[in-house]
């Protein structure tokens, strides 16, 4: 069985579009960093980074076209990582 | 369980009782059910199984019920922990420093000690700090345990309602002598404690330098005989030549002097005795120049009276020989030096000799060579002692000599 039959092949155009979006977001995050927002700087930077990451994951890495199982798996991995980071703060934020 | 002398730990003991009680109950229940089923539904007794795939109700019961129970158990555990962690206002503070592998307790008036001495019925806050790696301060009788983390200040508290001496352990693994990082908690009544707090460090009649060496835990790594411990021996420092490795890697033979010792304490890594690693923690501000001088004076004193005795004790001589003139397994050391000795040599010939240096030396490294009358050839052979140790021992025997030897 050819791997091509059950597969959507996104075109070059889409990828270049995503790349453009990533470039813009990079510019935005560098720009915002020059403005002083205190702790919000980190939050904004992380929000933009996560947006960029989702673009990479969903389009460059084709997750958008994968089945539900794989999507769930990715979700689980990120949730676990979030738990590891988040729960450590139960300690360090209260010491 | 261990006697319990801390009022706040009553709740902990209660939590133990509740949880262990539940544990025993459920364990017995599970085991009994298992064995009963095993007997009752053996294939001989019950040749045909009834296929039961499950029961939603039962499953819900044994999900919800244990959840409720464990939440209860959690709560007793947590409240008892809270009691152990809530340090009363105005508690007296003692600083506890842990280091490889000894403890040092510093009181508010500057008094230091290597045992924790506290007054009865008084809350004591312990400010815990570590100088090298993680240790853990543990008093089983108090149910108190808390880690000493380098670079971090932690604290714990305790309060005793009973007089007495209790063990303090190091409960966090900290290397070679972790098992020896043990000291005492001494609970005194208030007057005794006040008196103890007011008096200086050294005990009556003890050399100040020796007291300081003990207090700073030097003997936890260095020995005062020639046995090798975690660090080079401090025996007769001034009288022994040693090879040291200088910072540039060259080797040199020196006879330790005050400057060398001072540097070794303040900057232990700078010049190392050959064969030893850079493991000793540097002692900076907490040791005043005067204190250091007293220690050096003690270490360099040429004929420390206690040195040979300490050796004899350490090597186990005093287990068989007394120093009061009565014979035990072996002849008494008192008056031994210079006395006339009669006995048999190894090949059974009788001899009649004076106990001089050569004779006594032989008696130590080759005891069967001369077995005195009235004693068995029972002494272990000490042929692994080096010259310095032997000299020390002989010096000690000489100091106990009778008229004949003088």
């Amino acid at each position, binding site marked *: *069985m*050819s*791997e*091509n039959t*059950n*597969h959507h*092949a*996104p*075109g*070059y155009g889409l*990828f*270049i579009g*995503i*790349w453009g979006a*990533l*470039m813009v977001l*990079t510019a935005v*995050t*560098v720009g915002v*960093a*020059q403005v002083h927002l205190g*702790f919000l*700087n*980190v939050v904004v*930077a*992380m929000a*933009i*980074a996560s947006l*960029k*990451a989702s673009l*990479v*994951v969903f*389009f*460059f*890495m*084709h997750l958008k076209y*994968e*089945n539900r*199982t*794989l999507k769930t*798996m*990715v979700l689980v*991995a*990120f949730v*676990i*990582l979030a738990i*590891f*980071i988040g729960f*450590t*703060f139960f300690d*360090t*934020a209260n010491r | 369980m261990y006697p319990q002398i801390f009022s706040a730990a009553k709740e902990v003991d209660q939590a133990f009782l509740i949880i262990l009680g539940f544990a025993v109950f459920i364990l017995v229940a599970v085991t009994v059910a298992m064995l009963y089923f095993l007997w009752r539904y053996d294939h001989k007794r019950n040749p045909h199984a009834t296929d039961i795939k499950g029961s939603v109700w039962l499953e819900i019961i044994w999900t919800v019920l244990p959840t409720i129970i464990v939440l209860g158990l959690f709560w007793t555990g947590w409240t008892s922990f809270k009691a152990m962690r809530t340090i009363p206002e105005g508690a007296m503070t003692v600083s506890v420093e842990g280091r490889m592998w000894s403890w040092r307790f510093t009181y508010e008036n500057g008094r230091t000690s290597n045992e924790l001495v506290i007054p009865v019925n008084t809350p004591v806050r312990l400010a815990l700090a570590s100088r090298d790696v993680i240790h853990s301060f543990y008093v089983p009788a108090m149910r108190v345990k808390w880690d000493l983390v380098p670079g971090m200040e932690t604290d714990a508290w305790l309060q005793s309602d009973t007089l007495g001496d209790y063990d303090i352990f190091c409960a966090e693994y900290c290397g070679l002598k972790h098992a020896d990082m043990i000291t005492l908690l001494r609970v005194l009544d208030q007057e005794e404690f006040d008196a103890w707090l007011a008096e200086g460090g050294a005990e009556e009649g003890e050399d100040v330098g020796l007291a300081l060496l003990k207090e700073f835990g030097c003997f936890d790594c260095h020995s005062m005989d020639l046995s090798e411990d975690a660090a080079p021996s401090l025996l007769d420092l001034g009288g022994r030549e040693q090879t040291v490795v200088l910072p540039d890697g060259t080797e040199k033979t020196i006879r330790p002097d005050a400057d060398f010792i001072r540097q070794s304490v303040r900057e232990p890594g700078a010049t190392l005795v050959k064969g030893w690693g850079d493991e000793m923690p540097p002692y900076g501000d907490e040791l005043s120049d005067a204190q250091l001088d007293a220690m050096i004076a003690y270490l360099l004193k040429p004929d420390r009276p206690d040195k040979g005795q300490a050796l004899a004790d350490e090597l186990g001589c005093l287990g068989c020989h007394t120093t009061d003139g009565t014979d035990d397994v072996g002849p008494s050391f008192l008056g031994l030096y210079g006395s006339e000795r009669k006995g048999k040599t190894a090949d059974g010939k009788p001899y009649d000799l004076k106990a001089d240096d050569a004779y006594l030396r032989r008696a130590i490294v080759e005891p069967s060579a001369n077995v005195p009358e009235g004693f068995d050839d029972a002494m272990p052979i000490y042929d692994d002692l080096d010259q310095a140790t032997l000299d020390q021992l002989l010096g000690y025997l000489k100091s106990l000599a009778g008229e004949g030897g003088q």
Partner: protein
Amino acid sequence: MTEHRDYVGAKMGMWLFLFTEILLFGGLFVLYSVTLGRYPTEFHEASKLLDVTMGTTNTVVLITSSLFAALSVAALQKGSRKTAELFIGLTMALACCFLVIKYFEWSHKIHAGIYPGGETLVQWEPGKQAFFSLYYTMTGLHGLHVIIGMGVFTWVWAMIRLERCTPDHFVALENAGLYWHLVDLIWIYLFPLYYLIT
């Protein structure tokens, strides 16, 4: 034994492997976030010492290389081997570019004594030292992944040459691409965390 041709399975395996990579870096992100929480001002100060221009350039370089990686998969899927090889070459070229820039950044800092144990760094506050310890560890590990990624692409390129990776069975290239995107993904977080916390 027959070679398994389970396309979905192969890709699932690759994703699972990527999870392990994410969690590998995850451990370092735990350290980073906690240390940032403890020394916000020091991190802020230390971050200013990094060159934002270089960092931004590298971000652009890596994202673009990621684009080429994605394009190479698309090209092979569409059946044009040559284009795919061209895009792989571009990806690798940009990866080299990334490493060169990284090398200049590092060596510049190291010359200035700003490295763990370096004569300048040891004089600074603990918070700043922590920043740089983490900086070297995380970007170092990331750099290592860039190098591994290049190795993987070289291998896939050889597979394409040997016609073991073809427009019909391109999962090797696709997985190499996935790996490369992950390297990019991690950089997307490293960049603001180190260069933009100002």
